[in-house]
């Protein structure tokens, strides 16, 4: 923790630099969007940048780069369950025996010979 004054002084510069870097990354995201990349690539780029930015905020502004093991532990657990949660979409659709189709007005209903 940055409690003695010299330490905090040193960090101040870092805070402004990270702030600037975040703004630059924002610019890059918007610029990349103007290039109209193919959707999968655009998603990858945008998410990669967002994750980088988020890591910078967490590591520096939230001092995560220098935390105690209990906090890491709690966050690790959260990340694990977060990943489980993010797999809900695939659980919902991946392995369903059904087809998405309304009961009425789904056009031709299946059944041939």
């Amino acid at each position, binding site marked *: *923790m940055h*409690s*003695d004054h010299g*330490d905090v002084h040193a960090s101040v510069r870092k805070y402004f630099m990270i702030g600037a870097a975040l703004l630059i990354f924002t610019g890059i995201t918007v610029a990349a969007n103007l290039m109209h990349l193919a959707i999968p690539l655009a998603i990858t780029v945008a998410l990669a940048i967002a994750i980088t930015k988020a890591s910078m905020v967490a590591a520096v502004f939230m001092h995560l780069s220098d935390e105690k093991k*209990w906090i890491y532990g*709690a966050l690790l*657990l*959260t990340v694990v*369950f977060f990943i*489980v*949660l993010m797999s*809900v979409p695939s*659980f*919902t659709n*991946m*392995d*369903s*025996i*059904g087809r*998405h189709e*309304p*009961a*009425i*007005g*789904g056009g031709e209903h299946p059944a041939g010979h």
Partner: protein
Amino acid sequence: MDNVSSHGTTAHGHVHEPPHEHAHEELGWWRKYVFSVDHKVIGIQYAITGLLFLLFGFCLMMIMRWQLAYPGRPIPLIGQWLGQARAPMGIMLPEFYNQLGAMHGTIMVFMGVVPLAVGGFGNFVLPLQIGAPDMAFPKINMASYWAYFLGGVTMLLSFFQRGGAAQSGWTSYPPLADIADGQTVWLIGMVFLITSSLLGSINFIVTTVQLRAKGLSWMRLPFFVWAQLVTSFLLLLAFPPLEAAAVLQLMDRLAGTSFFLPSGLVISGKPLAVAGGGNPVLWQHLFWFLAHPEVYVLILPAMGIVSEIIANNTRKPLWGYKAMVYSVVFIGFMSFVVWAHHMFMTGMGTTMSAFFQTTTMIISIPSVVILTALLLSLWGASIRFTTPMLFALAFLPMFGIGGLTGLPLGLAPSDIHLHDTYYVIGHFHYVVAPGTIFGLFAGVYYWFPKATGRKMNDLLGALHFWTSFVCINLVFMPMFIEGLAGMNRRMYDGGMQYKYNASVLHWNVVQGYASWGLGLAQIFFIVNFFMSIKWGKAVDRNPWEATTLEWSAPSPPGHGNFLTEPIVYRGPYEYSVPGAARDFSPQFEPEKA
């Protein structure tokens, strides 16, 4: 760097600490008993409110059991008070039956058991057991109770709105829940209850991690504390997805979105005018993502209570304490990856069902380990059949029945036949009613002397136990017979229209009488409870000759709990230590006592 900073702050902190507003000066009645920040008062508030909700939820069920026993006959006594919209001429309407069912489930789970087990016992006992003066955040603790209270009041008031209370089951599956009456208020109430649990769980975790007394290392924690700690993590990380889902359902109902409404719906012959594009199964995933961990929230505190009582009344250490701790942590962890075993019939393919069947079988093993450890703890014991011990002992086979009947449900092919039948109802009531509720009763009898300085009456206690034990089994055991025969749950007329039910319908009558008998049996408890507050036998600090820290505080403990700072010298269950003078060596007594 760390040392420097902690040193600096400590020095500062002590010098400048402002006089806490609730320091030693006298507090008014309101601040002391109503808007209190003392964990013991809040715990008791939680416990009493929770008990009242349990009683209320049970009353709803007793009305339902009348309808199931005698479908379409006017309800005696209270029938005519229910009003035209619920029971014209005292005869229950199907929509009212559904309201009772949904609200029974909601009230029992979210407003009865969790507040009593976590809010009540957790609040009252946990800080005492770890030697803390209070919870880490007393004001947040108070806020958590009042959020619960508001949620509870909201739910109760929902009975009086037009169209009545929520009626789509406690599971609130859309599209039904998106279009049925009463659901909006239910969702708002749930948001309050969820908020309350989140605040509470943060408090419990921080308290356990930060405020343990000197010498109280992790493997010296009473098992109850472990159970509460795991429970808190479940609440903390599993509830938010349900909160999100509740917000989405509220949007569907209030803002006209269709998160859970697919395109092309036709309701009562008319196309539903919404944008569509939603997914009803999504709700089920989010709901069960919470609700499976939630069922362990219902059971773990009860397991913790039972373990304390078994150690105390067998006069010996818990057998396999460490294995129990690892198991409870493992259960907590696994409970996040089994949720879809409630959804086998939603059209799951082989891969996914194989995954969830496997995790479900895996999670049953640590439960077996804990139960086995508790059973083996009885070997070589010197069992005292006190009232709390009666309930704690009964917990073992009752939870056993409930847990074992989870297995055929967890295997998808046998679940085809059993899903949504009374077998499921039987399964989980064995774990929550003669399981958890018995565990909670045990806890009330056990810690009542700590909270009031008086013991509850043993004769009334024994009567309460035996009558409840007989009646509760008569209510729930026939459910397995009904379920295997195929009787569906949530049936307004008890399923009398279906041929395959004919051979088991008569059980409904038996269950009806048994449930009213169970209701009467509670009178022993209620009388005992209130009578003992005033006239119970006065006791000293440690009436059960127990070893954990709460018994070193006065009964009832004052503000700040301990007269001197407690120091822990040994493990939690050092009973009958060879060579010791007495058959218990408390954690708080130094070696040469």
